[in-house]
């Protein structure tokens, strides 16, 4: 008998989802990282990237083509965080508002489980999922780092993994908050998904235009990759911003969920 039965049950119930997300993220991390060799061995390709319009170079940070630079523009800068945010919105949306709409939350709350515990154990399962997929990505990248001689410090890959988990928890926590406010899965996915797209856009626009640089500061993507963790290592300030944002969103969600009627 476990002390956190709902957390472990959530993991057990979603074991296939864990495996699938792990496989998806491993595949896209491998695919994008593997291009590094082609690029590094092909000076023409490297040169062609510098010929791209300036806004594209800025958006994707193609100026720096070291191993860390490549990973920052591609693997960790684009596909992995986007897939991870989609995973956060999908997973948390299903286990909180999704289960509420299905009537399953009704059942659990007739058991000796407080509303706070229910939300936290569900969210805890998601944090485990994010740790799992982010670690898989780190292992794939670490493998290429050695194989392709990319020259990234292993500690920096670890730091990148920490902020990737925290990016996931920010969007997971946002999904939790909207789910706790509304109890509607469709609405929750729409709002959290839009916030994910906006976060990415704000960071990209902030990079383009100096006048819009304030947009970056409110984008979780900026706090995730802006301080260049693969080059500089983990930045404590930005890390705290991501962790603190997650905590505040979860607390607001708990506050809301403890005050309203359970659907349907």
């Amino acid at each position, binding site marked *: 008998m476990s002390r956190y039965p709902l957390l472990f049950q959530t993991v057990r*119930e979603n074991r296939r989802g864990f495996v699938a997300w792990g496989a998806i993220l491993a595949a896209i991390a491998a695919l994008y990282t593997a291009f590094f060799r082609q690029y590094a061995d092909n000076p023409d390709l490297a040169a062609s990237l510098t010929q791209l319009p300036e806004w594209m170079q800025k958006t994707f940070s193609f100026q720096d083509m070291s191993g860390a630079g490549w990973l920052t523009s591609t693997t960790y800068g684009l596909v992995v965080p986007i897939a991870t945010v989609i995973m956060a919105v999908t997973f948390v949306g299903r286990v909180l508002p999704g289960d509420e709409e299905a009537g399953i939350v*009704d059942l659990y709350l*007739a*058991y*000796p489980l407080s509303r706070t515990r229910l939300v936290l154990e569900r969210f805890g399962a998601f944090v485990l999922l994010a740790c799992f997929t982010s670690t898989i990505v780190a292992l794939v990248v670490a493998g290429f780092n050695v194989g392709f001689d990319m020259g990234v410090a292993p500690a920096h890959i670890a730091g990148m993994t920490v902020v990737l988990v925290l990016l996931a928890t920010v969007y997971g926590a946002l999904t939790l908050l909207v789910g706790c406010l509304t109890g509607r899965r469709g609405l929750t996915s729409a709002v959290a998904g839009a916030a994910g797209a906006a976060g990415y856009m704000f960071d990209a626009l902030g990079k383009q235009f100096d006048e819009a640089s304030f947009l970056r500061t409110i984008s979780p993507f900026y706090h995730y990759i802006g301080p260049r963790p693969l080059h500089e290592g983990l930045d404590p300030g930005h890390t705290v911003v991501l962790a603190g944002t997650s905590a505040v969103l979860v607390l607001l969600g708990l506050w809301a969920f403890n005050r309203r009627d359970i659907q349907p």
Partner: protein
Amino acid sequence: MARDSTLAIETRGLSKRYRGQGDGPPALDALDLAVPRGCVVGFLGPNGAGKTTTIRLLLDLLRPTSGACTVLGTDVARAPARWRQKLGYLAGDFAVPDRLPVDELLRFLADLRGGVDRARLDELCERLGVHRSKTVHALSKGNKQKVGLVQAFMHEPELLILDEPTSGLDPLLQHTFLDLVREAKARGQTVFMSSHVLSEVQSVADRIAIVRQGRLVEYTDVDKLEILHTHKVSITFGAPVPDHAFAAIEGFAVSRHTPTSVEGLLTGPADALIKAAAEHEVVQFRSREPDLEEVFLRHYSDVDQEGA
């Protein structure tokens, strides 16, 4: 407020108006109900009368618009999570995570309860004929309902709150279910069960509460319930009978009259009606239990008019 420890459920002016419900009558309107411990109460009413709303308020799943409820001596609004250890609940639309086998689900739910007697769980599954190796989503509605009953009864809670517990069960299992309720009562457990079929609860209930349009219209011992002695009678005659032939029979309210047939609700002794019918050529005489809607129209029409 003084709390009566002999009561399993006590509601005081309990009202619920859903958000977005507008100016219509509230889903539940000032419900005052006291259920003694160890009592089996049948909670009846047509669909949409407020039964599920009441039950979800008792479980703190809904928050009342006004009023309060005390369950097992604890104010529901301030109840800690462990208080629910004393409750067993079966929702009207019982939903569980459905991608796992029944056995795994029951083990998890027992875990969530904080441990359940294994032998008791096995006994319940056997008596209700639960398919333990099947995946939940492969079960029919009735088979899923059995799982719902097992999880509600498995920890022998002080109070069982069951919303339409027999829906989807075949007659044999309805019988088993009623046995479970009787055994629970014998053990001193309290059972509060909703239904929209009177006959389903009358054999086990000590008391019957009837709600209609969010209001309690009747709450009485089951043997004092007048509607239990009401029957729907229809008589077909071989030849036309005069219009007035059944107009003034005590306890018989005519609802339909054609030249060769009469239909109505009979409350109390049948003697006068049978003697009146016997003066004509009776081809067919049928008497059956009326459904609640029909009874309501007859017995609680004042509520109808007020509510309209």
